[in-house]
């Protein structure tokens, strides 16, 4: 191996270590090795358990909504032509281009019970979006909106319509083609998109901070609990929750890594 390659490799490893590995390791250390096992004690706090529940439930909603949305829009964008298609393609990327805190503000304006033009009629119907669970779902769904879509589109393009045409000539109707041909062939991409969505939704902070109100034990999410403990000098607990969040992210990445190479060996 040449000297430059060794040097490059060292630089990359050092970069990753100081930026990612070392800080994360510190979190682990603070959680488990600073006198007591903070994970166990923190999990006994009902507010923490509630925050974790809220986070996971909202993420699950985001996954379901964005999967349905991503697959439907993906098929629409790849397989059909309609006016405004390119614009729509740009528009759906907006949620990850805009800072989450801005997303939170925008949602507050639109869905707030007082001035929100959608929020007020909904509030009159007794549905409170802001400062409640639906608002959190809305925020995390919004910020992770295009992840399934973007995973699905290239695969849909690549498989083309050949198999669908073949299925039709064999007598399959539209629903059968969708279930038996299209969906199975994008399954890998959908899973990939789902995991990214999940990781993004679980880790969301800025948008939910603004729209959820952060009522402890009710509308507080895990990331917000981290912030609260941290500011309240209960650093052990904040590291423990941080550790759990990092664990979810790492698990998601591990699954993605396992799934990723398979995509390439597929097809003819």
């Amino acid at each position, binding site marked *: 191996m040449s000297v430059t390659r060794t040097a490059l490799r060292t630089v990359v490893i050092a970069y990753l270590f100081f930026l990612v590995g070392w800080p994360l390791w510190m979190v682990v250390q603070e959680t488990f090795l600073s006198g007591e096992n903070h994970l166990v004690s923190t999990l006994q706090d009902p507010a923490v358990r509630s925050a974790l529940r809220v986070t996971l439930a909202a993420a699950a909603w985001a996954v379901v909504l964005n999967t349905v949305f991503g697959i439907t829009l993906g098929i629409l964008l790849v397989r059909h032509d309609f006016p405004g298609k390119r614009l729509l393609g740009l528009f759906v990327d907006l949620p990850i281009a805009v800072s989450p805190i801005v997303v939170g503000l925008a949602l507050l304006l639109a869905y707030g019970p007082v001035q929100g033009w959608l929020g007020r009629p909904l509030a009159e119907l007794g549905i409170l979006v802001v400062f409640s669970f639906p608002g959190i779902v809305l925020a995390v769904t919004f910020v992770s909106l295009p992840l399934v879509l973007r995973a699905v589109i290239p695969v849909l393009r690549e*498989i083309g319509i*050949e*198999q669908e*045409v*073949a*299925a*039709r*000539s*064999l*007598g*399959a*109707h539209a629903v*059968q083609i969708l279930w*038996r*041909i299209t969906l*199975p*062939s994008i*399954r890998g991409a959908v899973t990939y998109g789902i995991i990214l969505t999940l990781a993004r939704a679980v880790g969301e902070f800025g948008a939910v901070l603004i729209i959820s109100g952060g009522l402890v034990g009710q509308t507080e999410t895990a990331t917000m609990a981290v912030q609260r403990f941290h500011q309240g000098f209960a650093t052990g607990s904040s590291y423990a929750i941080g550790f759990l969040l990092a664990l979810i992210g790492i698990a998601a990445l591990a699954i993605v890594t396992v799934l990723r190479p398979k995509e390439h*060996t*597929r*097809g*003819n």
Partner: protein
Amino acid sequence: MGIEIHHVRKTFGSFTALEDIRLSVPSGGLTALLGPSGSGKTTLLRILGGQEEPDAGSVYLAGRDVTRLPAQQRNIGFVFQHYAAFTHMTVAKNVAFGLEVRKTPKAQVRRRVQELLELVQLERFGDRLPAQLSGGQRQRMALARALAVDPSVLLLDEPFGALDAKVRKELRDWLRQLHEEVHVTSVFVTHDQEEALEVADTVVVMNQGRIEQVGTPEEIYDHPASDFVFGFIGEVTRFGELRLRPHDVEVTLDPESGSHPGRITRLTRIGFEVRLEVVLDSDPGSLGGAHPPVNVQLSRTESQALDLQQWDAIWVRPRAAAGGREVEVLRVGAGR
């Protein structure tokens, strides 16, 4: 009761892909649609398959007007150039697909799939994925899949187009045999005249969206109905005002009646065949312009009997019974 096509027309924008196509394909036959690239073969096949609608005219399959019938109700089998295998399903599942969407009982599906896999000699490969098959095997799988639903018509778009020469030849013979076993009315598209002449019992020659000629391979080869067909179906060489096949040129060492002197500028041996390029001393006709070299095709025995070598001076003339054609077209230039 095979396929009837009445006055079918198809345009793409201002481009006419098919012009007044009339064709009757006998039931149980194996018909080739032959023509150069862009002549409209695929378009015609897609209209038969229901993937494209004609602008005018009608299509009858087995006596039924299917012109406006969607593809999935036509009961046709379609084999695609690039296999269109269902990549996430096993070979057996691929073959079973048409039956499963028809809600055929499981036991029956299993039996039929087994039967078909045996027919296409893939019985040992049922559990594999298409990606684990060779191109030839994949195309056989696609054929079994198309045959599974007992189609009244089998349509194949350049079924061997993506395969290498040797596999192509094997599959060609195999398709011929298979057709003798199952006898389903079949139409296949090709731009390879050898393939068409060898496999089909009826050849339809197409050019620029029209049908030039319909006939048996012998009729097409021996009695081409137009200059286009003559030129497309086999090699052609010019001798004065005549266009003829290179093997219809006779070579002699001495002058004979109607023969013309020339010199062998190239001599190539391909297996048992010998090809000559002969530059004539003067133009035997009166078309004017430079006369191109005459291409001659001989058997090795003939060549050896005359002891032909490069640069030999010889005499050439059309064979007595040569199926040559007067060449009006050469006077106005190239084209049909």
